[in-house]
Every structure is written in structure tokens, then in C-alpha cells.
């Protein structure tokens, strides 16, 4: 017979993070049935909730690191359990109290973020190099908009297309915007979900001080993850700015008649809702609106779209961890897009970009399927 011997300190951390709702879990298993992991392998979300209730979590299990924080389960849980908060607290117990093992890949990214302020381990002073030849000014007090592209589009050679397209659009429209200095650091959203609370706190403090001292009022972001933490988590720490996702911003420019898309893109485009734009922040319509405004584009939908959209697999720090072939959600998505006859998978999140890019390449579909950020498509269509 197994003896229950709860690790008191860790249990307290988890119960506190799960709060009252965790106690309400009545073990119906809906979360397991909804969780996308069960499309590819077994992941018993319900059992983890029960273990958390009893203080009997297996901290050594790889399940600790599995959740992609896509919110599919939270959205439907009949008892309102904040499952992601519980997952995060378990990770926090492992990372903070050292009672389990942090996966290698995650440990390296965490070290990079804590050390140089970005998960890629790139030099901080090169953060704004992507914009060198574009003539983007430095943000100064009085500049209307701060554009904050996220670490991946700042450094990754492919994903730079996102930030460069955005700057191109802004330049063409004569928008008053600037980039913050290279003291800026990763927003910290994902590393927080991966259990590294202290790192998050120091990143957030750094950015908040930087933004505040520069007199930032409005931030436009490319990543739904930056959007989420700036909008929903920074305010508690004293950082209060107007936060706008690039798709919201572009959609409003279209509405006001300031952004006119005239060049045709004669393609079938399928849009993949990022979890942090959709389920976490309920932004579903603006990205679609932009795509529909591009002449020639035929917008099609995945079988599961909007509230039911399938995660790319990159949330909750999973973007830095290895997911074996056969378990990658983005592979399923690419398969579905091919099935629907799409030419382009349109995305609105740098993590989605990375995952879809890798899937398309590894599945040998690069000839027929393109992965493009909405900003890239707009930059093309603007003429």
C-alpha cells in the first residue's frame, strides 16, 4: 500500500496558488478530456488536481512540465478551477524549493533570461539591431507609441520578419513610434509559467522602471505573451500602460481608413488563434478582420477555431523544451491546414511562428505551405 506523505511546504505553496477553486475540483475529468495533450499522449490533468488537493504531487514526474498553459481546460472547467495557476505553483515548488528536476532545455533558457535578459542567450546590446537599416527612432518622452517586439522577433533571423514588417508598416503610415533602449529585457510571461517566479519579478521590475522613466503611455506588442503579462500581470506590480496587440492596432487603423491594403495576395489563408490572444484575452475578431481586408485573400478556418483553437505547443515555457516528433501540436495543425487546402498559415504570435516553421520544415511541406505573421502579410499588401 502506498503511504501518503505530503511535502508540507510545497503543498502549502500549491494550495495557496490554487486558492479556493482548487478545493472545488470534483474530479469530473473534463479537463483531461479537453487537454490537447491527450490527442498525442496521456496527460491526466484531473489526477494532478487531485494530487495537488491532497499534497501528493509527484514532483519528479515529467508531467510537471507538460502543460502548455493553453487554457482550454480552464475555459470549460465546471467548477472554475484555475488549473494553470496550480500547474505553475507545482513548477514553482520544484524550481524554487529544489525538490525535483528542471528539464535541461528549460534550465538553459532560464539561465539565459536571468543572465542576459533573453532566452536565446544573445547579447543585450544587440536587441535593437534588427531595425538598424530601417531608421527607427529611439523612444523618447513624448513619442506616442512604444513598439516592443518580444525577444524572438528581435533576435531570431527568420522571425525578425515580424518586427521588420511592423516597422515598415509604421514607417509607411508615418506613425510616431520608437524603440526602447537595449536595457529592456524579456517580458517574463513564459518563464513565470515555467515556475521561475523570482526571475519574472526582476524582469518585470526592470521593464516597468524603464518604461516609466521613459514616460511610456502606450505599448504596441507583437507577442500575445508580452500582451498578456503587460496587460494582466504588470499592473499589480505598478506598471500601468495602455497595451495594444499589433492585430488590434492594425484593425483599428483599417477602421479609421488610415491603413489601406491595395496589393492582391491571391492565396488561401488559414488563421491559427494564439492561445494568449484568444482564450486568455478573447481577441478573436481583429486578426480575421485584417486578413479579410487584404484583397485576394480567401480566409479559411481550422476545424477547431477561436475558443476551441488548438495550441501550437509553445506556451508555458514549452517553447524551450523538446517535444518529440509525434507529440507536436503544430504538426497536427499543419496537417489540418494541408487538408483544408491552405497556402499560408497566418499567425499572430512569435512562438507559433517558431513551431509552425519547424513543423513545416520537418514535415517536408516548405514548398507548398508558408507560415506568415499577419504583420508580414499586411506589409506585403500595403503596396
Amino acid at each position: 500500500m502506498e503511504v501518503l506523505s505530503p511535502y508540507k511546504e510545497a503543498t502549502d505553496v500549491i494550495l495557496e496558488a490554487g486558492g479556493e477553486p482548487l478545493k472545488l475540483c470534483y474530479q469530473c475529468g473534463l479537463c483531461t478530456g479537453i487537454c490537447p495533450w491527450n490527442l498525442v499522449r496521456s496527460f491526466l490533468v484531473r489526477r494532478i488536481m487531485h494530487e495537488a488537493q491532497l499534497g501528493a504531487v509527484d514532483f519528479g514526474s515529467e508531467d510537471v512540465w507538460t502543460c502548455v498553459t493553453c487554457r482550454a481546460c480552464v475555459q470549460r472547467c465546471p467548477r472554475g478551477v484555475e488549473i494553470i495557476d496550480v500547474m505553475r505553483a507545482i513548477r514553482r515548488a520544484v524550481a524554487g524549493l529544489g525538490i525535483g528536476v528542471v528539464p535541461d532545455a528549460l534550465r538553459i533558457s532560464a539561465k539565459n533570461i536571468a543572465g542576459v535578459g533573453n532566452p536565446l542567450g544573445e547579447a543585450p546590446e544587440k536587441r535593437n539591431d534588427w531595425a538598424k537599416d530601417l531608421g527607427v527612432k529611439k523612444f523618447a518622452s513624448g513619442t506616442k507609441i512604444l513598439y516592443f517586439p518580444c525577444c524572438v522577433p528581435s533576435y531570431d533571423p527568420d522571425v525578425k520578419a515580424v518586427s521588420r514588417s511592423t516597422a515598415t508598416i509604421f514607417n509607411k503610415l508615418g506613425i510616431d513610434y520608437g524603440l526602447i533602449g537595449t536595457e529592456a529585457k524579456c517580458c517574463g510571461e513564459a518563464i513565470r509559467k515555467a515556475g521561475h517566479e523570482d526571475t519574472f519579478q526582476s524582469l518585470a521590475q526592470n521593464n516597468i522602471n524603464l518604461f516609466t522613466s521613459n514616460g511610456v503611455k502606450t505599448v504596441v506588442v507583437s507577442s500575445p505573451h508580452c500582451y498578456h503579462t503587460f496587460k494582466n500581470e504588470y499592473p499589480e506590480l505598478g506598471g500601468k500602460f495602455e497595451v495594444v496587440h499589433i492585430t488590434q492596432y492594425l484593425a483599428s487603423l483599417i477602421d479609421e481608413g488610415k491603413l489601406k491594403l491595395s496589393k492582391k495576395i491571391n492565396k488561401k489563408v488559414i488563421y491559427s488563434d494564439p492561445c494568449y490572444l484568444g482564450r486568455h484575452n478573447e481577441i478573436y475578431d481583429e486578426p480575421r478582420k485584417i486578413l479579410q481586408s487584404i484583397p485576394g485573400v480567401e480566409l479559411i478556418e481550422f476545424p477547431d477555431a477561436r475558443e476551441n483553437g488548438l495550441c501550437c505547443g509553445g506556451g508555458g515555457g514549452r517553447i524551450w523544451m523538446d517535444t518529440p516528433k509525434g507529440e507536436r501540436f503544430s504538426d497536427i495543425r499543419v496537417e489540418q491546414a494541408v487538408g483544408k487546402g491552405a497556402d499560408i498559415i497566418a499567425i499572430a504570435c512569435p512562438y507559433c511562428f517558431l513551431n509552425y516553421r519547424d513543423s513545416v520544415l520537418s514535415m517536408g511541406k516548405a514548398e507548398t505551405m508558408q507560415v506568415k505573421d499577419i504583420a508580414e502579410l499586411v506589409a506585403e499588401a500595403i503596396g
Partner: protein
Amino acid sequence: MEEIRIGVYICHCGFNIAGVVNVEEVAKYAATLPSVVISREYRYMCSDPGQDLIKNDIKKLGLNRVVVASCSPRMHEPTFRKAVADGGLNPYLYEHANIREHCSWVHDDKELATKKAKDLVRAAVKRVYRHEPLVVKEAPLNPNVLVVGGGIAGMQAALDIANGQNKVYLVERDPSIGGHMIQLDRTFPTLDCSECILTPKMSDVGHHPFIELFTYSEVEEVSGSIGNFKIKVRKKARHIDESKCIGCNVCEEKCPWKTDSEFEMGLAKRKAVYIPFAQAIPHLAVVDPNLCAYIKSDGKKCGACIKVCEAQAITPETLLKQTDQIVEFDVGTIIVATGYDQFDPSVIPQYGYGKYDNVLTGLHFERMTCAAGPTGGKILLKDGREPERIALVHCVGSRDQNYHEYCSRVCCMYALKYAHLAKELSKADVYQFYIDMRCFGEGYEEFYKRCSEEGVNFIRGKVAKITDEALSDEEKGKLVVISEDTLLGKLVRVPVDMVILCSALEARSDAENVARIFNLNRRADGFFLERHVKLDPVATPTDGIFIAGCCEGPRDIPDTVAQAEATAAKALSLISKGTITTEAAVSTVDESICHGCGRCEEICAFHAPKVASKNGTLVSSINETLCKGCGACAVVCPTGAISIKHFTQDEILAEVAALTEVS
């Protein structure tokens, strides 16, 4: 004027009050107040010895005013008024101070709480000083009863009351009585045929000499109060001559216009002129004006029914000219029994209701298993095949904060009933997805055991998704039910042919409006609120109005019937007493200042004030049997001519002044 002699009694309420308030100190303080002759504290003033203290002091010390400082007046003001009356005083020479809910329960600083208790007692003493004796009068109670809703609840209540030879007006919105129960096939746990046990009752209601039945009708307006309600009913036009229709149904056979039958849950059609179902009471045709081509074309098209009706019950006249009628009558008590709606599962997109043909609700399945139903009692898929596997999904819209948080109480049992019927009427395997099995009633656990013996597959888990996307050959052409089997700790995909969603019972979509008409309160979940969940479960906060059945929350037929009988008993006890005591603290008009402006007449919900000419000038007077003492008229009276007995300006100001005094 006689000398005022006040007795003050401070209750400990065990530790409820005495644990926070220093009751001895309050009692000592009260003794120092002017006109207080005696001041005592006691453990439980509401007990017999406590009440005896009051009675004895009135006799021995010649008290003529009494104050008790204890709990909320809601429960025990009547107790102490009665004690005062037993002691030989007018019961209105009593004042109640609440030092529990308003003091000890909400404070923990003992010193300040004690001070506040003193303030409250001082205010009560000042007020009681000014009380006048009032007389309670009796008024006759109209013995007629209105029952709203002709489901099993309404019918049972109506029959119980009418069998005692009291007149009942039964108002049902649909063209026939019967409610949901007449749609059911068999009823758990005994599996009695619902029709067989219900049609005799329906017939009794239809023919009862003491029941006046209004079907296809709705109550539009209620005014007055207990003993004396005025009711206005809208009788919708059936577009036939009710006195001539013999219910032969020839018109329906010949009518060419079809739509889904409400009674058959869309599994069969009905016509523009129709009789809702074979056992309908009254057995009369009704014309659907939105479908009838003759009505819609203003007599230019069709008219097939007119030609075939030998009884001449349908004529151009009835179709085109018949209008709704307004009927008015008076009753003394009202029973509301308007039942429930079945939750619409199409708002849960992942269950595919409305998208997949063979995803159905409980009421569909009831009609399908019924031998007299659209499939002749066969369980059939949309394409006419028999299912090989059936899934039963529990808690659809129930126990789920995204829809309804409450448990619908009957779904576990009706799901078991379906498992049994599926076994009896088909060869299908049954998979029942449940979270908890709730089989609490008489014979229910036994029924669960019986279904287990019959080989039902129970899977513990809330269904996550129903899809037609096949991952294997076995799943092709099937509906795949996806859920965790939480006992196995495995995700399961069960390919089935038919899914029955055990949908929640929810408050009627028009409950808000019904609540407004009958002055009912609703709970957060939308159902009507009872006066006390345990001790007064069928009364409502409005005297003389009772609620029965599923309009008060989901429940099974046994509970519904028991409740209906309880409402009948409540009404009958009022009828047998025959009178109601009217409020003594009513309003009065000082005719010397009244201008006769009539604002009081406009505001009063009970029609108590009447402005009439008296000696050549217009003045208002109050009908004391109708007045509830609510005070609305006193507030709007521009001259201050109206005051409320027991709450006179003098009394209220004295109380307020005492409260603001510094002790």
C-alpha cells in the same frame, strides 16, 4: 391621562447576546429611564418562564407598556405581543428592540456593543411611551382559489382543493393541460406508464364541477392581497367555436400546412389546425395563426378546414374575427405551478446538439420510447436504423458554473430509466457517462442496482466532446464520445450511434415576468423563492400566494405531488378559517388637512384610499381591510394629512431623538 408604567426585559439568548453585550448592565441602565417601573434580564425571554415574567409583572406591577430587547422581531415580535395580550394589555402597547442581529452578532467590541444595546433600548422605551392601543379586525376571505399552470403540480393542487367543494380557477398557457409529465413515457423508479397514471387525473380536472378550466390562457394582472385578489386572464383565440368542436380531428387531417409538433419534440409534425395530442384536455382543436394560410391571407387562401368541419366549429368568422378575451374574477388565494424548461444544449458547442442528427435530449428520447409516440416505441436513428450503441451523458448544463451550478436532481434517475428502456426496446449497448450517481429517493438505489444487473456500462467522467471525426475504422460513421474514465485514469473514445444529453431543468424563460405579476421573488438560479427553505417551503413572502413543483426548482414527480398537496393544504386551511386578520397599523386621514388631491389613490398597490366628496369637499378615506400599512400614501401626501398608526411622526421622531442622544 393614566400614568405610563413600562417594563423592560433584556434577553441573553444564551450566549448569542450575553456573549458580547453586558446584559446586566443594560438592564440596570434601563431601570434608570423615565417611566420604567421594572427592568430585568433573563436567559431566554421567548421560553414559557420568560413570557411568564412579562405576564406576572403586568398584573402585579400594573405595567401598561412593555419592551423586550432580544432577537429580530421577525420571529418573536408576535410571541411577545401575544404574551402582553395574555397579561391583559392591548398587544400593540409593546415595542421590540433588536440587540442580536443589530448588535451582538455584528460587533465584537463588548464595551461599545453594550453601549449600543443601551441606545437601542432607550429608543424603544421612548417609542413605546407613545404607543396607542390598536384593534385587529377580521375580514372575510374569498374561498375561491386560482391555480396557475396545469402540469402535475397544478392539477394535483386543483383537485385537492376542488374535492373539498371549493371553487378553483385553473389557468394553463398551452392548449391542453398535462405539462411535461404527459410527454414522459414511463416514470422512474417504478416504470409506470406516465400517460396511464396521468390521463385519469387530467380527465378529472377537465370534468370537475368545482374546477373552471382556462386553457390557452394566461394571467395578465393580479391586484389586491390575501383574501381578496382580483385576477385578469387573457383567453387566447383558438379560432374555433369551443361550444361546437367535438374533437373529431377531421380538420387536422385535411389541413395542408405542417410544422414540428411541440408535443413530439419535433420528431413528428402537426398541422396549422391541430389537437396537441390524443389525450388532450380539453379535447378541442386550436388554430396556429402564424401558420394558417387562411388567416395569413385574410381569407383569400385555403380554408380546407372550414369545408370539412361538419360541426361547423370552424368558420370564416372564427378564423378571421375571433379575438382574445379578457376574463376577470376574484379569489382569496393563489397557487403558482408553472414548472420548468428543459435546458437547450446547443449552447455547449462541443456536444454537437443541433449539428449531429442523433444527438438528442431526454424529452426526445421520452417520445421515442413511448408506444404511442412518433416511432411507435422504437428507438431509431434519424435514417431509420436501430442503434447498436447508445451513450447517455449526465450533467448537461447542471453542476457546471458555466451554465447552472445546481444539480437538476432527476437526470441521474432518468438516465438510468433510459438505460433500462434501451435494453428493453433495442439490442443496443449502453454507455452511461456520469460524475456522481445521485439515487436518493424511495426505490432509487434499488433501481440503480437493477440497471447494473442489466449490464449497463458505467463510465465515471464528464464528457469532453462528441465528434464525428473518426480516428479509426471502428469510429467511421459513428459519433465518438470522448471523456476521461476517471476510475481507470484513461482517456476513452467510445464510438456510438446515438447520444442522449441529460439536459438540466431550468427556470422558465418567462419566469421574470411571472414573478412580477404574482409579486414573487427569484433565487439567483432563476427559480421562485420559498419563504423558508425548511420550515415554510411552499409559502412565498407574499401572504396568500403559494408555489408548487418545478417552478421552485428541479424535482421529481413524487416531490412535486407532495408539494402540490402541501399548497392545497395551505389554501384549504385559510378557506376553513374563512377570515383573515387585517393589519391594525393602517393609515388614517386627517380630513381637516386633506386636499383630496388623490395621490394616495394613485400610489396604493392595494386600492385602499378612495377620494370622495364629503360635505361638499373632496377628501380621502382609507378602506382598513385593504390597507397593509405599507406607508406609501403617507410619503406622497403633500399636506401630511395621512399618517400610519403605530408609526406616527411623533413616535418615529421620539425614537430618532433618543438614538442621537448621548448616553
